[in-house]
């Protein structure tokens, strides 16, 4: 019995980290510039929002919304918007007030054409990036997150 508890308890803890049920994925988050860790877009007219479902690294749940600023000054974006469904892209050379190209756009393992992002805030001290984006079937996209550095 004790052995069963030792096996089941960590599993239950892992599963509870996999989903944040307070996030309503049917309502588009407002456009903000405060680092509120929000992400949303329309894909084929349906709302998809990050923050509820964790991305999985093997059997370990990871953050739902990940923005990484890499050594080539590009922002790598990966967001889980449904269990097992991820939207990812790279923002090339983001700058505040700038319109940038977004490349390597993948939606549910489907490649999409390059798009554009308008950066409304890029604060390297507070590590906040906020803006709007669109690409082919993806529109009304917005994000307001605290990014990490690779």
């Amino acid at each position: 019995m004790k052995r069963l508890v030792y096996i089941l308890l960590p599993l239950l803890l892992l599963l509870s980290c996999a989903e944040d049920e307070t996030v309503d994925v049917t309502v588009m988050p407002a456009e903000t510039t405060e680092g509120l860790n929000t992400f949303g877009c329309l894909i084929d007219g349906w709302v998809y929002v990050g923050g509820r479902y964790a991305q999985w690294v093997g059997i370990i749940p990871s953050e739902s919304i990940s923005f990484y600023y890499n050594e080539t000054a590009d922002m790598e974006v990966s967001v889980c918007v449904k269990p097992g469904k991820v939207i990812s892209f790279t923002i090339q050379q983001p700058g505040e007030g700038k319109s940038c190209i977004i490349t390597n756009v993948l939606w549910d393992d489907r490649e999409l054409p390059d798009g554009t992002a308008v950066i409304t805030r890029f604060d390297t001290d507070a590590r906040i990036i906020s803006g709007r984006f669109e690409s082919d079937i993806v529109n009304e996209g917005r994000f307001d997150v605290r990014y990490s550095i690779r």
Partner: protein
Amino acid sequence: MKNRIYRYFLMLAIAILFPTVCFAEKPTFKRHELATYFGYANMLAGTGGLTNTSNSYEKKLRSGISWDAQYYYNPIREVGLGILYSGFTSKASHATGSDHLFTHYIAPQFAGNLLNKERWRIRLNMGVGYIRYFNDSKVYGKERKVTGGRIAGNLGLRGEYLFTSHWGVSVVAQYILSSIRKVDIDYHGETIKVKFPSDNRLSLSRLNLSAGINYHF
């Protein structure tokens, strides 16, 4: 022509009601009572589960119209046992969506008369029952249906004037108290459960201010 017709019916109504009111028999004690009311309601503690999270939008949906139906059995003149149904609706829209709220509350009631004159009565009623919440909303043109429910309670105060032995008119203030911890949202072919933090639940509390008629038999 239309005005003449309206004036005719108004005079007919006065001709029927005037002697009914003036020369009506004294009201006697009746055991059964049916009532229906309509009026204004306000969700004083706010609401949630909406397609837009701004305060200004949420305020638009706090106020709406309410309607009640009640039945009482009065074993003695001063006390009544019965059942209350109370409904509420409000709606609003914004650039990318809309919300249409409904709540339905039903509860057994206990009532006691605070004032019991020949034609005037003041009655206090209270009960514990169940409230159901619906939001028929749209987001960027796609349907989004929100539902939830929980136990609720009510406290009301009614002033009634009996103008005949059977009929009375009333004004009512009724407060319904409840909040829900989670809702189910049907969107894009799926049902998603959304939980509210324990310190910020979706409030369904509202104050109804209404008027209507009572039938005693």
